[in-house]
């Protein structure tokens, strides 16, 4: 029986070697997808918003606003020289918004009318551009404390003579230089207020404590590649189901299936001989994509090679198990071409293989993709050990053997 399985496996690998175009899909496409997705969404996991910035103000506060916005990690700026150009480009949809600091901003901030920062938004993306407003407000708030204190002190000194029943001439006559005193006191009050504001920031009345999870091992936050690499490896591995269905269907119509079953071979060795080669190819594909990702994207393979290896084997077997089940059930060339692809895309979509943040709760756990991807995340990004992926291994092997069992039951060779 083992010799028959080995003979079938070798034959399948020889036949599969003919599908050179398919191997490009299997081995190269996942890497290309990972690279494209990584470049599109960045590798920090936090997406950035690209906008324009125009600074027509020549004062100190305008420059400080620009610097504060530059420090904001979620905004990516392109500086433009004029509001007119920013308005035109946003109108064309080149960016979702532009932040404009108008001329005289620094002076205006110190008047009662106050300063004004303008945000030009693309009407088609007005709601999304609201993110920019929040970030501009957050970035400019600390700077405006400085201006607000200075404006308040000036107002106080301008109105103080009236309030206490003496005039500016009285003060001058008493030898008091009002502008100098104003300047001195403003600096002193600013210092005290700033100190208190900073103190309030450092020691708020309502304190929010952030504590690391009790048993968590020290590690870095998962990057986007930690999701993309296992996600797309698993996604593309399941495309092998289509190739399996095609080869079984070809055996059916060419007569080789009937011929093989006129020989002393049973259903189990025959189906295992179909399952194993494609499971091995799936394992090889995952290994190659992981290896390439380590070289190209600095992908972290974790610290548990045994766990990683077992997870790759279990994932490969689940590809083979589901593939052989689909191969047994399809009855026409059209079905062989369409059903595996449809199944692959559906499982990938609900499991979060395509977009890490999009899953169908409940449904996702019915897919091998979910268990494989979560297992790879545990071992790689989260540096888990074998015990951390035992549920994943169990689920993947249950899917593989369950599907194979149904395939043996439903298989008809004549």
């Amino acid at each position, binding site marked *: 029986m083992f010799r*028959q399985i080995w003979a079938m496996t070798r034959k399948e690998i020889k036949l599969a070697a003919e599908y050179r175009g398919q191997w490009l899909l299997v081995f190269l496409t996942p890497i290309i997808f990972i690279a494209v997705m990584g470049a599109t969404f960045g590798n920090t996991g936090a997406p950035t918003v690209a906008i324009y910035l125009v600074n027509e103000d020549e004062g100190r506060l305008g420059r400080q606003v620009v610097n504060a916005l530059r420090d904001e990690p979620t905004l990516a700026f392109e500086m433009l020289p004029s509001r007119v150009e920013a308005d035109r480009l946003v109108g064309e949809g080149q960016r979702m918004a532009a932040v404009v600091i108008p001329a005289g901003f620094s002076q205006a901030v110190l008047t009662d009318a106050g300063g004004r920062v303008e945000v030009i938004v693309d009407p088609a993306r007005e709601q999304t551009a609201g993110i920019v407003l929040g970030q501009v407000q957050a970035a400019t708030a600390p700077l405006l404390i400085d201006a607000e204190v200075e404006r308040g002190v000036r107002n106080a000194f301008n109105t103080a003579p009236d309030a206490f029943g003496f005039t500016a001439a009285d003060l001058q006559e008493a030898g008091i230089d009002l502008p100098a005193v104003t300047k001195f006191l403003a600096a002193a009050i600013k210092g005290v207020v700033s100190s208190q504001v900073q103190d309030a920031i450092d020691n708020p009345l309502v304190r929010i404590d952030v504590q690391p999870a009790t048993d968590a091992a020290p590690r870095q936050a998962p990057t986007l590649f930690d999701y993309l690499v296992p996600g797309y490896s698993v996604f593309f591995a399941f495309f092998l189901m289509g190739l399996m269905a095609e080869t079984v269907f070809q055996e059916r119509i060419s007569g080789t299936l*009937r011929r093989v079953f006129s020989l*002393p071979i049973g259903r189990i060795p025959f189906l295992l001989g179909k399952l194993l080669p494609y499971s091995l190819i799936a394992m090889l594909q995952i290994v190659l994509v992981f290896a390439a990702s380590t070289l190209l994207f600095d992908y972290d393979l974790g610290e548990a090679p045994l766990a990683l290896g077992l997870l790759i084997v279990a994932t490969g077997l689940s590809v083979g198990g589901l593939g052989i089940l689909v191969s047994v059930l399809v009855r026409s060339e059209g079905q062989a071409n369409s059903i595996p692809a449809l199944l692959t895309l559906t499982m990938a979509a609900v499991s979060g293989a395509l977009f890490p943040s999009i899953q169908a709760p409940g449904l996702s756990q019915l897919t091998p993709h979910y268990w494989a991807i979560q297992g790879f995340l545990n071992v790689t990004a989260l540096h888990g050990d074998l015990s951390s992926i035992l549920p994943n291994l169990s689920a993947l092997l249950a899917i593989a053997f369950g599907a194979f069992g149904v395939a043996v039951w439903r298989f008809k060779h004549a």
Partner: protein
Amino acid sequence: MPGYILEANHLVKQYGALTAVNDVSFAVEEGEIFGLLGPNGAGKSTAIAILSGLFPPTSGGAAIGGLDVVHNLAKVKQIIGVVPQDLALYPTLSGRENVRFFGELYGLRGKGLQTRVDEVLGYVGMQERANDRVQTYSGGMKRRINLAAGLVNHPRLLFLDEPTVGVDPQSRNHIFESVARLNREQGMSILYTTHYMEEAERLCHRVGIIDRGKLIALDTPRRLIAALGGGIIQLGLATMDEAARAAIEALPAVRSATFATESTMKSAASRPAEVVMPVQANSKAVLKIEASHNNDALLQVLHYCNEADVEILSLDLLEPNLETVFLNLTGKSLRD
């Protein structure tokens, strides 16, 4: 008393309302080439599929080498070889790789496998091209590799299902010679299905004629032909004249005379026989005459028609062979 390598008893295979094999019984002697002759769709391939264990019969049973094909299937499969009608090969593998693969499934390995693969490739004359991909072969060469793959386990009983369909004359002769040599030199028993009566006559020791799932005759080709007598004369007449029929049947060289259906007449006319006169479009009746001797019967029938003023619209003279036997038994041609 020869032993039987194969015994089929009342085999029936039904697919819903269709009875593909209908109460078929026959036996193949050790060292015999047994032919199953019948048109396409007669049930030959279904019979082979049952006997080779591809699926069980609806009823009835069969034994090969004394082993029941249902209950001892694994052992039965070790002693049979099957050469299917389809070119059941992997086209992107070489001929050698194909034969080797089937040998491995039989459990052969190592030097024994290598030697056997070389032997069978030599047997079918394919050693020179054995390492080329099957998809580069001609139809005849594919048929020869198809045969080699069925021989790799050195079977005691070989099922050959229409092995010469679509092959060139050179490959057909090669296959004939291979089959005859296997039987002659190795004593291999062979069950050979075909719808070519020349093949059955040339190769088979005995022939079973099968039509619509039923075995309708079984004997040596010589006896089957002899039973027919001298041959068949088909006479196209203007009217279905019962008096003329009776008079012709009474002629000394005539064994029987019956009016045939129009479809029978067309079948006969479509085959390349010794047509003396073309079939007339306005023929009203066809009188099928079984002759004990064709020449004498022909002279007597023509003389009678001349004397009795019976108008002859067409005349076919069919030589005695298995085709004629089949026509006589079923009223239709093997190629229908």
